[in-house]
Structures are given as C-alpha cells and as structure tokens.
C-alpha cells in the first residue's frame, strides 16, 4: 500500500556540529514512537563506531516514521546529512531528496559558520526551511537574541523560530505539527514513467550495495528490473525496504516516498549517487537532475609503516585494506605510487582534511595496517610548454612531480570561499590571519550585535594545515568556519627544493607562493634539523628555488658517542643495543651518507611553528 503524497513529508535536519542534530533526530523518532527511549540514546542514525566517537555523521541515511496529526496519519521521511565542511556535497545530495529542511541552531551558541553554509545549501535547493532554536533548557540560552541572529544572517523571520529542547522534549510536538503543516507535500509526478533519485549508497558485506532512493515518479516493486540511467546498467530488485529505523521489508515504494533497495550490486563502483533509477522495460526519457560528483581536493600518500615487525607483505595488506574500504566509501581515490624514501604506497585523494583523517583511521582500525601518512597537498593545475611549443595542462598532486621550472607556463591552485563567524573583538586578528594566508577579503556582515560574519577567498593550500586550529586559538574557541571550493586561480607559485648534504631530495620539496617561499623553506629546514639525527659528520641543509639557495642550516656532527661502563655483565645487552641502533638506521632512507628518518618526510608542508 502506498501513501497518498498529500500525507508525505520529506525533510533533512541541518545544523552546525554539536548544535543537537542527532539528539533532535532521536527525539523525533521517539515522539513518533519509532524507537523506545533507550534505543534513542544509541543515536540510531549514526551507524559507524567511528562516527559515534567523533560525534559526526559521515553517511547519510533515511528513516521513515508515521505520525498522526488531526486524525490523519502522515509519513515522515527524514534524510540524515553529515555535519561537516568536508561533506558539503553529501549535504546537497541529501537535500535533493527533500522538500524541506529543519535548521537547528543552538540557542546558547547562536548562528555559526556551518549554520550559514548549510542554510544556503537548502535555500539554493529551494527547500522550505523551519528554523529551530534548540537547547532552550540551558541556563545560557538566549532564544530572542539568537532568533534575531537568524533573521540578520539568513533573512528568516525571527518570530517563525520554534523553540525546543531536544533534551527535555519541550517543543517537539509543536515541531512535528509545523513539519506537517508548513512543509510542502512532494510534487505530483510529471511523467507516467518511473523515476527515483539515488541519494546514497552503502556497502554491506552480506547483501552487497544498499541503494537509498527517493521516488519522484511512479512506483518500484520487489522483482522489478531496473536501469541506472547514467551508468546504463540493469539490475533486478531482490529486496525493497525502509528504515523505521529498523530495516523493514516492503513490497513497493510509491511516489514521494523514500526507501532502500538491494539488487545484487557487487561494488559501489556500479552505482553512482545522483543517478536516476528507471524501469528497464519502460524507461523514462529524461533522468532527474542529479548533481556533480565530488571532487578530491586534498591529496596525501599512505605507505605501510615499516616499523611493524611484519616484513614483505605490508604493501599487499595496505592494498587489501584500501580496496576493502573503497567498497564502503567511493568518495576517495587512490593509485599506487613509489617513493624513493618510503617505498611502495598509494596516493589518495580526499574531499577535505577531515575526510582524510577518517579514511586513515578506518584503514588502521578496520584493515589492521599501520600507515605512514605524508603531509597533504592540494591538486595543482600546471600549464607546461612542450618542446614543440604546445601548451598542455597537467594535474599535479605532488611537488615532486612538478616538471622542470623552464617548461612551466603557469601554476593554478584551488581557491575556497571561506565563511568565518567570530565575536567582533577578534575580527582584527582573524582578518590578519586570513590575509597572511593570501586571503582576499570579500565582505562582512553583522550576525548579531556582538558577532560578525566574514567571507574571504583563500587558497585551499593555505587552509589545509593548521588554519582551523589557528582560528580557534585566535578567537578563544569562539570562531567557526566553513569553506567551499570555488575555482582554480593562477598565482606566482614556485617549487622549493631541499638539499641535504648538497643532494636534492625530491620527497622534501614543496610548492608555495613566491613571497612565502623563503619563510617556508627556512621553517622546513628548522624542522628537518630537529628530525634528522646527528651523524659522525656535519650535515648542511639547504633550501633552494631553481638553483638559488634561500636558506641554510647545519646539523653538527656527533662529538661523543660512547658507553662509559662496559664490563663482563654488559656484553650481551650492549651488543644488542648496538645492533638495534643499526637496525633503526635500516628504517631510515639514505641520501648519500645521510640517514633520514621517515618522520622527516612528514615535516614538509607542516606549517605549524
């Protein structure tokens, strides 16, 4: 039995991290009796351990519940969204499946950078937005002020805010009422063909890929032969269902509804989020409007750690772990690389920094491998002139891959639009930080009497390191930021090389702006000086741009390395110590007669002081 679209509401909850999205979701499930209070505590929408640990949701999923309003039963589908900058694209794809959004703002913290970015995403999608002030039970809650902030920053009437406490349950009934009364019903089908939008897909070890979809036109039934319009692949539905939030099988899913399907799909590579599902024997003419696949913008290498006792199969284990994880997360890319210093590994591309951390942690935890991770870089677009004078564009993720300086016509780097919200007293400091990072000031608005929102354009390369930490530090923890990658931009970028004992070491080179090159080069040398152990001889360290030395340091030679006491009882222990010392050196990379530890290779691009 399908529900009349008049009685269906599809919506997402969007919020800045920690403003209470998960708690509110649990509360709604509980209010609609979908879960008991105890189950609610387990925050059912977040399914992975790791997500729970980090308190963020990284995979969208959909839950269907029923609620009776004025004697009429309504079907509420809520589509979960991740709450972090790296996953903006996931937020937009979840929003594609909705008609409405609930914007949750902490009544004590007020509007934050992510609140703004998420609200704009919803506005861009033409969704109806219900603003909710959460945590009104807190003694520090200032609902009136925060409602004004919402009006000022987002242009949504202050008096329309609903006051709730996800913790005590206050205001939840009113919120449910508003969802039903204010949010629009799904639009009526525009064609008699079947069309459903894939808004998420996850991999399950037992059933293969589980596809989350939103029906726009027509109905899907178990046993239907379906076609993915974009990829042109056909499958046969073996299971249809809904999460309530426990998975429950259904026979069919009608227009306006959401659900999941299982169809013997082996890998996530066979499904593209944003694709349209239609029926094989009666396909639609046009797919629904999907959206751009996510772009990998941050790159780093993963190598198996040679510290572990295991010997040769380290690389194989890493490869297996990466392959397995890619079944679960199709948003990172990887390709094998070989580094002089670190051996065989993979260069991986990520949506952002948090995404990179999460992938690394999951590989280590789920794949049981130890990883050496190189410093992240961004993806550069480099125009080079060939011998024949032809210009071609290369995409470079690694400074070491940069061609000869003479052939380079230009280097472009990804730019971001960065929104920062900060208490007014720190605006000067924030401004200074952004300008130091080659930021271009765009505009500034008052969020409230005491807080400002600033927008800058900043190269991604300048924010992938410690920008966020710096911002937090400058603003006593009150500043929040979010970024969106906008375009590529040419700048005066150069490659800084490092020479150790007069030999260039490619794995230590970096790309940066010409004006900062000297500073960055010197900073790197200072770090290397700390990381490279002293040798029997003096080691000169130099930084250079195209042959011109821009900085130098020296690691003094050892002058003393001798055990004071060595008698009969010390022989075995001492011998083992000396053997271990040699073994330790084996883990290092030799450049000429200099031994460089693996960690030193991580020092590149680490801009922290």
């Amino acid at each position, binding site marked *: 039995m399908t529900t009349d679209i008049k009685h269906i509401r599809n919506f997402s909850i969007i919020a800045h991290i920690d403003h209470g999205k998960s708690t509110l979701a649990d509360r709604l499930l509980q209010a609609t009796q979908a879960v008991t209070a105890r189950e609610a505590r387990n925050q059912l929408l977040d399914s992975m351990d790791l997500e729970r640990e980090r308190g963020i949701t990284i995979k969208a999923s959909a839950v269907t519940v029923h609620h009776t309003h004025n004697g009429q039963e309504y079907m509420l589908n809520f589509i979960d969204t991740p709450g972090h900058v790296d996953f903006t694209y996931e937020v937009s794809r979840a929003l594609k499946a909705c008609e409405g959004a609930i914007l949750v703002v902490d009544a004590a913290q007020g509007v934050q950078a992510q609140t703004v970015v998420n609200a704009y995403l919803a506005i861009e999608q033409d969704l109806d937005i219900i603003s909710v002030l959460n945590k009104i039970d807190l003694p520090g809650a200032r609902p009136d002020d925060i409602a004004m902030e919402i009006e000022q920053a987002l242009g949504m009437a202050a008096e329309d805010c609903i006051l709730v406490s996800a913790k005590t349950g206050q205001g939840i009934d009113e919120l449910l009422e508003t969802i039903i009364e204010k949010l629009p019903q799904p639009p009526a089908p525009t064609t008699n063909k079947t069309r459903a939008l894939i808004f998420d897909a996850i991999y399950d070890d037992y059933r293969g890929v589980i596809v989350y979809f939103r029906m726009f036109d027509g109905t899907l039934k178990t046993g239907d032969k379906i076609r993915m319009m974009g990829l042109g692949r056909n499958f046969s539905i073996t299971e249809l269902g809904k999460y309530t939030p426990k998975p429950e099988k259904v026979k069919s899913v009608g227009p306006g509804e959401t659900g999941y399907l299982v169809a013997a799909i082996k890998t996530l590579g066979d499904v593209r989020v944003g694709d349209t599902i239609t029926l094989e024997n009666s396909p639609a003419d046009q797919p629904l409007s999907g959206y751009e696949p996510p772009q990998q913008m941050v790159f780093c290498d993963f190598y198996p750690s040679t510290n572990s006792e295991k010997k040769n199969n380290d690389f194989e284990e890493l490869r297996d772990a990466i392959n397995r994880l890619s079944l679960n997360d199709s948003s990172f890319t990887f390709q094998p690389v070989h580094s002089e210093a670190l051996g065989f590994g993979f260069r991986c591309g990520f949506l952002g920094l948090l995404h990179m951390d999460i992938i690394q942690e999951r590989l280590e935890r789920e794949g049981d491998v130890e990883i050496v991770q190189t410093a992240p870089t961004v993806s550069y677009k480099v125009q080079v002139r060939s011998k024949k004078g032809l210009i071609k564009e290369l995409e470079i993720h690694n400074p070491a891959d940069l061609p000869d300086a003479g052939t380079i016509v230009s280097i472009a780097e990804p730019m971001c639009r960065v929104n920062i919200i900060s208490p007014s007293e720190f605006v000067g400091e924030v401004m200074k930080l952004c300008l130091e990072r080659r930021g271009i000031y765009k505009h500034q608005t008052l969020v409230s009497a005491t807080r400002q929102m600033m927008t800058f354009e900043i190269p991604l390369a300048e924010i992938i390191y410690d920008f966020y930490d710096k911002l937090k530090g400058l603003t006593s923890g009150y500043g929040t930021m979010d970024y969106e990658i906008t375009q590529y931009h040419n700048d005066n970028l150069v490659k800084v090389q490092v020479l150790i004992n007069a030999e260039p070491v490619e794995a230590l080179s970096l790309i940066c702006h010409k004006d900062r090159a000297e500073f960055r080069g010197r900073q790197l040398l200072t770090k290397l000086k700390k990381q490279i152990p002293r040798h029997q001889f003096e080691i000169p360290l130099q930084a250079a741009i195209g042959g011109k030395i821009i900085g130098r340091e020296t690691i003094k030679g050892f002058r003393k*390395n001798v055990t*004071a*006491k060595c008698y*009969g*009882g010390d*022989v*075995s222990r*001492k011998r083992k110590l*000396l*053997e271990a010392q040699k073994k330790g050196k084996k883990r290092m990379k030799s450049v000429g007669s200099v031994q460089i530890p693996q960690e030193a290779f991580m020092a590149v691009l680490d801009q922290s002081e």
Partner: protein
Amino acid sequence: MAPQYNHIVLPTLGQCPSASARQVFLALKPQTSPARALYIHIPFCSHKCDYCDFYSLVDTRDRQNVFTDRLIRELRALGSFAPEPLNSIFIGGGTPSLLDASLWERLLGELNDSFDLSRIQTGQGEFTVECNPESTTPEFLGILKAGSVDRVSFGAQSFEPEHLKTLQRLHDPDRVELVIIMAQDAGIVRQSLDLIYAIPGQTLRQWQRDLQRAVAIGVEHISCYNLTYEPATAMTARLNQGEFTPADEDLEIQSFELAGKVLGEAGLMRYEISNFAQKGCESLHNLAYWRSESWLAAGPAAAAHVGGHRYRNTPHLGQYLDFDDQGFAPIMDHEQPDTRRALAERLMMGLRLVEGVDSDPIYRAGEQINEHLCDQLRECVLKQIEAGLMAMQDGRWQLTDAGLLLTDGIVAELMDVVYQA
C-alpha cells in the same frame, strides 16, 4: 620482613630460568681451555643509589646466611671446572663489604679450597674486592688480607658532598682517604678509586679538584665514569621529571679530556675508555672482559663467558636460593657459541682498550665466516683511519683519542659489517 626490591625489574614468569649453568658446562667441548677468571656477585646494599642499575637488594641481613651457604655450594660446583690456577677474582655487587665478617671468612676459605689460588698468592694474579668507603673497617680489611685479597676498589664517586647528594651516595667524602690508609695498613697495597663526572651541576673546575684529590691519595688505579642515565633508574626518572639539567656534551668532552690530562701527568695512563693505571697496574680481571677471555660467574645476576657460551645467573635472589642443580645456579639469556657474535663482541669490547685488538685472530675468524668479510672489515677500518678515528699499529687496530669518544658508532659500523657478511 621480606627484602625490599628497589628499582629492580623482577623477572616475570615468562622469563623464569629454564636452564641451569650445569647444562652449559656439560655441553663444553673437551678441548675448551678452562676459565682463568672468576666473578662473584654479592647482591646486598644498604640503600639503593639513584643512578645504579646493578642487581642488588637493600640488605635486611635475614638472608645473608642462606645466601652464603648457597654461594659456597655454587663455588664448589664451579671449582671442578677450573683445574688451572686462577689469574683473577673479582668480588663485586651490590656492596660486598656489607656481608658479615664471619660469612666473609667462610667465603674466602671456600675459594681457597675449591680453586687454585697459587698465582694470586704469589703476586702474579689479582684478587679484588669492591668496597664501600662507608662500611669498610680495619677488621674487614684484615679478613680480606688473610683470604688472599690483594686489591680493593673504592667507590669514591666525588669529593663534593653536594654532588654525592645528587647521586644519593651516603658516604662522607673525607672517609675515602681514611679507608685507603686502612687498606694500606692492612697490607692491601693495590687500590683503585671510582670517580663519576658530568654530574648535574658539576663544573669543570670541581671535576679537576676531584681528580687532583684522587691523585694526591696516591692510588695505582682510577676509573672515571661519565654519569650515565640508565633506563629504569631513579636518576633517569628524576631527569625525565625535569628535576635537573644534565651536563652538556661539551662539558662531558672536556671532562673526559681533563681526566686523561690530569691523571696522565700523574703517571696514571688511560688504558681503557674509563680506566687509568700506573704501568703494570691495569686491572687483570677487567682486561679478561675486554679481551673476550673466559670467566666463571657466581651469585645472582652474575654473567659468565665460558667456551663461547654467554649466560647470566638468575637476577632474583629467591630463585637463586631455591633452585640448586648440584650447586649450579639457574640461568637466563643463554647464548650458544657463535663465531659471528664472538667476532662482533671481540671488536666491541677490544676497541675500548687503548691497546686495541689484534687483527690476526680477527682475520682468522673472519675467513671462517665469509670470504669477503676480511676485505670488508679492512675497508671499514681504513675509512675510519682516513677520518682520523682509528689507527693501525703493529698489526693492531686501535681507536685514536677522537675515536674513543665515538666508540659506539664506530663499533656499530664494524659489527654491521660482521653481521651483513
């Protein structure tokens, strides 16, 4: 009251000794030449010094008797494997002088009965007992003398009360001169002093005064140790807690060089990295270690080297007392004879000596291991010679003064050649 274990990592069950020294002796090849040196470990101290990583227990006197009985049984067992006259005996600890006088008499008597002490008794050998200035008395020295002991070694460490306090050594520095005279009066004329430098807060000037005072006392042998922060000692813990700043490397080097200068001018020549002696007064017993000769070991935690085997008696007094395999002690860390290992150790220990190592036996051992090893070793040595760190003299490989300061790195490289070949 049970003995108190301080800073000692007790062996866990997994490390429980599974073998006894008797098995090692039974496995010796008939042509093995017998050991001519004997080390005895007395595991008692009156308190535990902060920098010390020797095996010792704070003495509660309740186990001295049983310990001596057990040690005597062990000495008897070992004696049957020492048919030749001994060249040297060294009794160390711990604090050997803490052992009760009557027990010392029994111990010395047993040594006389179970071993041939003729070389020692005729002045061709050496019998040393380590003494603590605090607990040494004329009576005790008399007992030693009567038992053929001809050399005493005192842990003076420093003459500055402030630095002794840093090391948590309890003796009165002025007592050192006194016990030296006592020993002379008792007829024990061969005497050695231990000093420590690079103690946190110690200046070069203070170190010079310590050296001068030691010289003035007129002993034939002085050991000067750079203070070492051994893992799992209270001193290292204090260092890590930032209680004090360790001496910097330049001061350590200056102190090392100053010792050579001041003692050299007084006729005490450096013959090992940390040891100085008048000509002919080098410690015979310690030379046996550095020359990779064989020696027997008795007492808990004592390490032995016999016929190429290395092992350690259990470092646990309780186990030492409880397990008794026809007198032999339970052992751990047993290493079978191995030409490669032996060669590595010969280099590691021998290069500590100013005399260096004889290259002939090294080449002979090298040839047995691998045809290229000798060439590779020679190449490695030549590289060090070029760098001014080693010298070749009369077929001996030696470290230069600059090389001695870098011994560990140089030895590690040579050892690596041995292991890689």
